[in-house]
């Protein structure tokens, strides 16, 4: 990173131009499936970010609900109403609006959990690879122990213990609290992958001359790790992170579906599916199947992006 003669905006334009001209962008443009997946993902981000403006109804404001509109089927089925595109649930809430708000929660939890596990895993991975010794063995053995159990079980356990700790208090039923617990539980369940990958990449980088040179001229360890080693380990982290985002969204939905995630007062996609499941038997399939479809579409799109990124960043496949 040398400071060139260019001004700030000129550098930005240069970076954008190089970005649009790179191998990555080329392989992106060449692949229609990936472009579709990216558009779908962006639509979800957009819908989640601007749910307050896009959603045709305010499903969680009881004063706007009317039981007269309850259990309406999707608009194109007889008895449907075009102001409720995907139908309504038993309390007259618009399904399309609840899906928008639900996706927002799912994405917030998913993203935060991934960021949490990246920070934790990359931090532990870089430091353990760089310093080595007993610290490294403790971190890596901890990763081994955790990898013995599937991540969903770890997330469930952490979630359960957090619930047990706060069992007596009234914050347990609070939706915001549930969100923090979920982010923590899902984040904790995924750190070992990052730690392993980053540690082995750090071991490789550490033995190279530029790190030795940096050390010789007296740059402090934290700065070498942060500015020199870390940027060279980011490729695989980006790939794992994308695939992990899909997994985190699934895990959040699963925990909420199991009834130990986000409470129904402010439902995520998983909660919506859980709450709607009982109406499946009385014929109101849209209450649960549309949120399920929304979840599957989101996960599929993110998964496709992750797969493409893995192949595109893999030099062996170029």
């Amino acid at each position: 990173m040398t400071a060139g003669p260019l001004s700030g905006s000129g550098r930005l334009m240069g970076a954008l131009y190089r970005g649009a001209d790179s191998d990555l962008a080329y392989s992106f443009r060449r692949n229609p499936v990936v472009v579709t997946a990216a558009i779908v993902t962006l639509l979800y981000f957009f819908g989640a970010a601007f749910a307050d403006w896009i959603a045709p109804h305010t499903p969680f404001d009881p004063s706007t609900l009317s039981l007269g509109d309850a259990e309406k089927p999707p608009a194109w089925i007889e008895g449907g109403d075009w102001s409720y595109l995907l139908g309504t649930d038993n309390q007259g809430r618009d399904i399309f609006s609840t899906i928008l708000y639900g996706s927002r929660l799912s994405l917030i939890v998913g993203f935060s959990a991934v960021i949490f596990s990246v920070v934790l895993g990359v931090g532990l991975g870089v430091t353990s690879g760089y310093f080595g010794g007993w610290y490294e063995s403790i971190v890596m053995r901890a990763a081994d122990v955790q990898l013995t159990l599937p991540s969903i079980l770890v997330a469930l356990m952490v979630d359960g213990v957090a619930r047990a700790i706060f069992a007596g208090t009234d914050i347990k039923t609070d939706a915001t609290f549930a969100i923090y617990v979920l982010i923590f539980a899902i984040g904790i369940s995924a750190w070992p992958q990052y730690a392993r990958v980053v540690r082995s990449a750090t071991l490789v980088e550490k033995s190279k001359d530029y790190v030795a040179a940096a050390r010789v001229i007296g740059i402090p360890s934290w700065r070498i790790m942060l500015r020199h080693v870390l940027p060279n380990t980011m490729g695989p982290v980006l790939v794992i992170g994308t695939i992990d985002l899909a997994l985190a969204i699934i895990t959040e939905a699963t925990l909420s579906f199991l009834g130990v995630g986000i409470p129904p007062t402010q439902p995520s996609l998983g909660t919506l599916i859980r709450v709607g499941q009982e109406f499946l038997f009385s014929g109101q399939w849209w209450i649960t199947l549309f949120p399920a479809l929304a979840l599957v579409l989101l996960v599929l799109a993110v998964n496709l992006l992750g797969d493409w990124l893995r192949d595109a960043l893999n030099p062996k496949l170029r």
Partner: protein
Amino acid sequence: MFSYLVNRVIQSIGVLLVVALLSFVIFNYVGDPINNMVGQEATLEDREELRERLGLNDSVIVQFLRFVGNAAEGEFGISYQFQRKVSDLILERMPATLELVFVSAIFALAAGIGLGVYTGLRRDSWLSRFVLTTSLIGVSLPTFVIGILLIYIFSVTLEWLPSFGRGDTVRLGSWDSGLLTGSGWLAIILPAITLGLFQLTIILRLVRAEMLEVLRTDYIKFARARGLSRRAVNFGHALKNTMVPVITIAGLQIGTLIAFSIITETVFQWPGMGLLFIQGVEFADVPIMGAYLLLAAIAFVAINLIVDLLYAAVDPRLRVSAQRGTGTA
């Protein structure tokens, strides 16, 4: 080989001790066990007496050793929620889970290997393409969504199969079996498919990839040149040589099946250990959670160990230089 074996066993015991420690910490420090056992009106002396009687005043190390000893005897205390011994509850629920895992493992293996061989042999047929595309979508479907879809199709719309419970069970000693009655078999179909579908896709892709690899080798060409029947070549030579990685992955996947049975059991209200565990998490029932954690860890460590040892037994290269990382589930 011997040092490898000893190494792996020691490693496994280490993992179990760590998990036991976690489980012990959950038992003893999450919420106050005394508060959970006595009523509101208990006096301070009563509490102190109970504390003494339960051994909560002993040193932490003594308590931990006692905990491990009790756990080894299958003793995990009393469930807060059901007011019954956790060991009894788990024993009651275990047959349901094991039968479900067993049936879905068989389903995943049979269908996975069958479809894997077919898609490997007939790479370009439309059926192969269809199977592969479907399996790609299948990987993106969360377990509970698969369950809900199956319920909607086969229970609600077609009304062919039951959507919850185990059907009629027959008591064999202490084992409640659902596999001996017609309604039991009908009831297990949907949960077993739901649970096994993900494993099926993994095995399918693995077998297909291995078949494609093996079919290119010289000894397959030679077998064909010798004029052996297609069947002997495809199954006697090719399939047989794909089995080593399949055994490994399939073994590890059984562990995953146990974990994911929690979700399937919730969708289908299947009265197994997973449902018990979820109820434990929901009601902050610490003894059930701790016991399940320990049991699950034992199951996973045992499966990992067996798979690693099997692998070493099958693959001679590993017997010589045996320094592999821990198998992951």
